[in-house]
């Protein structure tokens, strides 16, 4: 055709936008192809969405630093393009935008071919090239895409179809991929660009549909060819724009796009089709033993149905143009019979034993299938991503340290000792205990941490010991991980967060809690960084995020309070101070939510605790005098040393405290440092007070100072924040080659002359700080490994209840277990087994307890009398003396006519009551108990739902708070 036939060709300007995200492997080729176009583009802007593989450097190298925009990792393709267009003024004439993925390399004539078609037909607004495979250039990927009414994508191609020109031509299609899409800027602005609700999958379809509805044309031009690697869809790189599962996202977006764009009268039928289709597909997935896919299907459908307002809003936006052109659009949809035909095909191929023929193409989420050559491409895949993550490495290293240090605790028969009663029973026993079905004598409420443990045990195959081992013995790696994740909002660098996290995880509080079997402190120690992170979100996030963080904080605070009640008042004081100090709209409500949730969830038990305030200072497990240091030295709390077994010498933690003190000299982040030190000083003060307060144990059997582990963990959290800040500064200093904005500014030197000296001094300071800082985790790990996790805790405890008793006792028989220690005689009344974890925290009723205590003392004194009758009346059938069995005790028990000896050795003595035993009647069940438990379950589910992270809506995503690097204004090249 000659140029005279057509209207006077408009002056076209083309702006190419290359969006990269972890695509360094393809990006170089893509940029080459872009710059080699026969019709050169007029402007190029590169956008890097927080790549971690050097994509940004490639872009900068090819396009120059001023033409590259850096955005956070969570930015979607559409947002990236929008950000660029916001910063670019329009040009004269007809402006086109050429969208390029980092893994999409156009052939050199592509742009020319596209513009040629655009010149010919002024109605066309979107043009797409023919997409071929990146590796095998003969394979066709897409020549335009359409969709059926259930959202199923249809390329009209057979899988692995070779390109022999059979589809060539300029074709009117429903949509083309954003990879290589050429779109008119005015049309882009008219239809509003890519929908931010669809960060990935079907965003192109939606855009083209809207363009078509607005009366424009979408063409696929097969003379323009591009090669496309489909890296995100094939999961060669991680999808970071959304935390949802890709498959779920794919289904959700598919249904959403169809339902948002169909005209009203077609909508009900599409709704019914989708509903039925989804359920049918779910059923098929279930039958095919693919519950994960079934879940995705249901959740995707559910997320469409439970948010009708979202759909209505989307439809309202599209309403203006919809309908005008829709007859033409409907024509392009996959015909209605295609679904049945596909089902038929699938059935036939299944019967024939051949593979199923799929024409959906691959640019949507698919179950990954290994294809030829694909294994060569997986070097940046899941494994590398996980193994290369500093958090994973930190977790692995801490796990190794823990395993080596706890070498004496593994593989034994029974874990226990210190504050931890021997861990027996399974998840069902714990549930029984919590719901009151175990028939404990007291009317007391079982502590709610039993429910947490029971839930965890249920997940861990019903093994309570596994749950306790994970929480207690694994608290160091868990704390490291939680500290690593919690400092994410403070420090941009990932490696810089490793040091503070490791320092925190290996603090004496953790090793001491493990050595003394303090499950409560261990759990709180893991949770505290999460509290800090949620508190930051609550204080600084936007309204929805803050509210969500408040619910989450409340839930986690309830868990922590259940294990160690002291954490609640401590955080309450800090929360109240924060609410007073930072007047912010909605903050007071958030704080009330965060601190109201634990009260609501733990109500009856918490009231019981408050009735005897000393219990606030206790935690899950036994309170025994030997577990706290004799007297806590005065210098111990500031060095975060809680005393007691398993704590390293004080100079181990001096490095961390020293660095935190040095942080006060920094000019930057002074408010954060001040806040951190405020928390730390408050925690140390609380630790001093707690460590000096003698507390009587639950049953009045011991009186000893409380262990200041929880307040010191709080202080350590404050220092963790400071340490993270320091680490971030030092890392920035080292990488940035120490020019402007160094952490430690040396005052008073003239600028020009001493610049290098200053730089050197700063470098030396940074080096010194690094050395001092690294001493804490390394020394702590070394000492821990050297000494081993020795202490009262033991992995191989003998069972306290001999088999002789368990074999002979019938249901309801109680056993009086006596043990003689230097600090006095103690007894426990056991019900055919040693106490479950948590049972020791149910207060025993005082009356029977005192009567049995008097009777036991009388038995041991050999005074005769009716001691045995008292025991029999309380249901005690056996009297067991634990080692060491002294002659005095065995003689005294032997002198009782009412006791008959069953076994006696130095290691064990067992006596049996000769008189008939009458077990006391079980107390009547409290009708309120089960009602409250149901209420509690409902409350927990409600809070979980409120705290769960929701979808990332447009407003949410665009104003994401994390902007690690300043956004620079791009200037076109």
């Amino acid at each position: 055709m000659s140029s005279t036939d057509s209207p006077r060709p408009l002056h076209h300007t083309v702006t190419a936008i290359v969006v990269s995200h972890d695509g360094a492997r393809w990006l170089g080729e893509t940029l080459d192809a872009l710059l080699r176009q026969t019709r050169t583009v007029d402007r190029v802007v590169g956008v890097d969405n927080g790549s971690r593989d050097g994509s940004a450097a490639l872009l900068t190298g090819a396009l120059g630093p001023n033409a590259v925009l850096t955005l956070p990792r969570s930015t979607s393709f559409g947002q990236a393009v929008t950000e660029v267009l916001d910063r670019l003024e329009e040009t004269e004439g007809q402006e086109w935008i050429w969208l390029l993925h980092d893994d999409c390399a156009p052939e050199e004539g592509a742009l020319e071919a596209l513009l040629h078609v655009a010149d010919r037909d002024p109605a066309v607004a979107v043009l797409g090239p023919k997409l071929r495979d990146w590796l095998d250039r003969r394979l066709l990927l897409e020549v335009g895409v359409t969709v059926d009414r259930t959202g199923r994508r249809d390329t009209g191609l057979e899988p692995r179809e070779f390109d022999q020109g059979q589809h060539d031509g300029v074709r009117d299609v429903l949509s083309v991929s954003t990879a290589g899409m050429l779109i008119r800027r005015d049309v882009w602005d008219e239809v509003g660009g890519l929908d931010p609700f669809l960060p990935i999958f079907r965003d192109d379809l939606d855009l083209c549909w809207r363009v078509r509805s607005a009366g424009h044309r979408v063409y696929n031009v097969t003379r323009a060819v591009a090669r496309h690697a489909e890296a995100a869809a094939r999961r060669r790189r991680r999808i970071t724009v959304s935390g949802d599962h890709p498959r779920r996202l794919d289904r959700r977006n598919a249904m959403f796009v169809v339902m948002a764009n169909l005209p009203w009268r077609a909508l009900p039928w599409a709704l019914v089709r989708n509903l039925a289709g989804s359920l049918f597909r779910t059923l098929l997935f279930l039958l095919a033993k693919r519950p994960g896919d079934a879940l995705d299907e249901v959740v995707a459908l559910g997320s469409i149905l439970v948010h009708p307002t979202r759909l209505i809003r989307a439809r309202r936006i599209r309403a203006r143009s919809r309908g005008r052109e829709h007859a033409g659009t409907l024509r392009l949809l996959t015909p209605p019979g295609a679904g049945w035909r596909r089902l038929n095909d699938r059935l036939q191929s299944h019967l024939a034993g051949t593979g199923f023929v799929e024409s959906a193409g691959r640019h949507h989420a698919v179950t990954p299938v290994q294809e030829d050559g694909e294994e060569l491409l997986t070097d940046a895949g899941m494994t590398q991503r996980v193994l290369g993550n500093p958090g994973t490495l930190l977790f692995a290293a801490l796990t190794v340290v823990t395993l080596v240090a706890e070498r004496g605790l593994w593989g034994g028969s029974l874990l226990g000792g210190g504050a931890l009663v021997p861990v027996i029973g399974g998840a069902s026993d714990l549930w029984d205990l919590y719901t009151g079905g175990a028939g404990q004598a007291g009317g007391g409420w079982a502590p709610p941490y039993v429910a947490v443990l029971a839930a965890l045990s249920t997940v861990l195959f019903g093994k309570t010991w596994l749950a306790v081992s994970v929480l207690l013995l694994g608290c160091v790696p868990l704390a490291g991980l939680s500290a690593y994740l919690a400092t994410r909002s403070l420090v941009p660098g990932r490696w810089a967060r490793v040091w503070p996290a490791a320092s925190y995880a290996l603090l004496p509080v953790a090793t001491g809690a493990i050595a003394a079997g303090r499950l409560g402190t261990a759990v709180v120690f893991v949770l505290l960084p999460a509290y800090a992170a949620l508190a930051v979100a609550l204080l600084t996030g936007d309204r929805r995020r803050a509210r969500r963080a408040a619910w989450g904080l409340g839930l986690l605070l309830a868990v922590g309070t259940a294990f160690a009640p002291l954490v609640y008042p401590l955080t309450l004081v800090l929360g109240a101070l924060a609410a007073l100090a930072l007047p912010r709209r909605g903050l007071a409500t958030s704080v009330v939510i965060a601190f109201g949730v634990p009260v609501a969830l733990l109500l009856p038990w918490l009231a019981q605790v408050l009735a005897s305030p000393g219990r606030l200072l206790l935690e899950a497990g036994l309170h025994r005098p030997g577990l706290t240091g004799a007297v806590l030295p005065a210098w111990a709390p500031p060095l975060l040393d809680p005393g007691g077994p398993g704590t390293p010498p004080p100079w181990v933690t001096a490095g961390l405290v020293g660095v935190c003190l040095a942080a006060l000299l920094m000019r930057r982040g002074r408010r954060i440092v001040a806040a951190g030190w405020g928390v730390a000083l408050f925690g140390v003060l609380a630790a001093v007070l707690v460590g000096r307060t003698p507390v009587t144990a639950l049953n009045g059997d011991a009186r000893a100072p409380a262990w200041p582990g929880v307040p010191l963990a709080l202080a350590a959290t404050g220092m963790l924040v400071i340490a993270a800040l320091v680490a971030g500064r030092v890392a920035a200093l080292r990488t940035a080659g120490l020019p402007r904005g160094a952490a430690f500014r040396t005052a008073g030197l003239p600028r020009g002359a001493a610049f290098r000296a200053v730089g050197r001094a700063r470098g030396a300071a940074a080096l010194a700080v690094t050395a001092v800082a690294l001493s804490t985790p390394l020394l702590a790990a070394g000492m821990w490994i050297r000494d081993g996790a020795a202490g009262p805790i033991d992995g191989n405890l003998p069972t306290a209840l001999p088999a002789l008793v368990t074999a002979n006792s019938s249901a309801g028989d109680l056993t009086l277990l006596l043990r003689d220690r230097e600090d006095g005689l103690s007894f426990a009344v056991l019900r055919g087994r040693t106490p479950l974890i948590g049972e020791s925290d149910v207060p025993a009723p005082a009356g029977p307890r005192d009567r049995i205590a008097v009777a036991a003392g009388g038995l041991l004194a050999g005074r005769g009398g009716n001691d045995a009758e008292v025991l029999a009346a309380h249901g005690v059938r056996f009297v067991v003396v634990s080692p060491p069995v002294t002659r005095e005790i065995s003689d005294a028990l032997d002198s009782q006519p009412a006791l008959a000896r069953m076994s006696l050795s130095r290691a064990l003595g067992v006596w049996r009551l000769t008189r008939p035993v009458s077990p006391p009647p079980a107390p009547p069940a409290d009708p309120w108990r089960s009602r409250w438990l149901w209420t509690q379950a409902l409350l927990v589910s409600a809070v979980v739902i409120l705290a769960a992270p929701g979808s990332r809506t447009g407003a949410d995503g665009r104003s994401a708070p994390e902007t690690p690097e300043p956004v620079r204004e791009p200037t076109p090249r």
Partner: protein
Amino acid sequence: MRSLIEGRFGPPCLVLAALLVLCGVASATRPAPAPSAESATARRKVPVASVTAVCPAPGGTTVGAVTPPGGGPGVATLTGGGKTLATLTTSGTLLRKKVPAGAGPLLVSASGGMAAGLEVAQTRRETSGGQRGLAGVRCVEPAASTWLIGPGPAAADVTLHLANPDLARAVVEIMIYAGEGPVTGDGDVIVLEPGESRVIDLRERAPSPLVMAVEVRTAFGRVTAAARAVMRGGRGVDWLPVSAAPSTRVVVPGVPGGEGGRELLVASDAEADTLVEVRAITSDGAYVLKGRELVEVPAGSVATLDVSGGTSGRPSAFVLTADRPIVAGLVVTGTGKKKDVAFTAGAAPIDLGSVVADNRTGGKKSSRLLLTAPQAAGRVSVLVLPGEGKTPAPFEVEIAAARTKQFSLPKVDGAFAVVVLPLPGSGPVYGGRVMDERIKGGLALTAQPLAPARIWALVPPVVESFSAVLP
């Protein structure tokens, strides 16, 4: 203030000051050292509320039963052969009961106030015949383990009297240790049903030992055990007192002065030989017997040591220390043409007092208490409880450190009981009672170490704690 906060070195100084203040608070509130463990483990004295004792062979003897005064209401019952022979309801008076010959074991049970310190003894006096002499024995409570030490079946007819007064079956093992080592019997056990008693001639089990130690121990249940030795050739008769359980330090109190043989028996059930150091504590002082400082006791056997001349006829006690647990006893032989024999054995200190139920004085009879204070000086009060008539006022006796003090009990009409109570500040006191009578042909005598009275029980503080399940 503002410059302090915003200045460069202000905040570090503030934080350091705060940390120092916290250290100061911590050191100021440093608690005093914890009170000693004494108060935590202090025991409470409570009266014993129930006592059961068995007199092994009361036939032809006089049984005396007494409870020290001060107890509340209660009743003590003497039952023999299924019949109640006597009841005692008032404390502080001695009940004496002659039991007809041939009667079986006598069960004495007391409860309430009458149980606190109930002491029962049987004494048999024969002036002629094969059983000539004085033979007395405490009626003991059933126990899981009883040690008796004395002559063996080769030197005397030794009969072992076992009884099971409890409601549970008792399974009894008898271990015999002779001078040559442990006697391995046929190993069978004796099963005593509740209320059953049995007399065993030890000759059937071990015919050859000249001296022996017997441990009656039960695998299940409890029994009372007593042994009577009738010396061959009319050399006297007496019961073996229950000896203190094996220990590395044994005090054998109540060795009477005067003429006659004194033979110390030391037994060990250990699996290795042991050397025993012997010290005598006499009225004149404590010393090591010259040439008899050490006794070697082979493993599982009984060694003898003649200590007749060692104390120069002074009342004394022997303190034996060994590196392995031992049991000790002493054979006292009387003087005269027809000799009588008496036995004493290792005993516990009478920290909570002691009661001797049956003493006689007047005429040719005399009763003496021999009190020994091996370590610190002792001070006791002695109360005489006659069978009838007014109770005299108690008197005090002081024992110098490392001395044995002998004193005769006052003359009282008829039999009487004696209560010995240590006074506050007294060191540990061991004691024995010797009773003798000059009868035709020679001195008849019997002896017994003072057994701790069961007046008080020391109740240890016991607390409920689930930490009991942890080692």
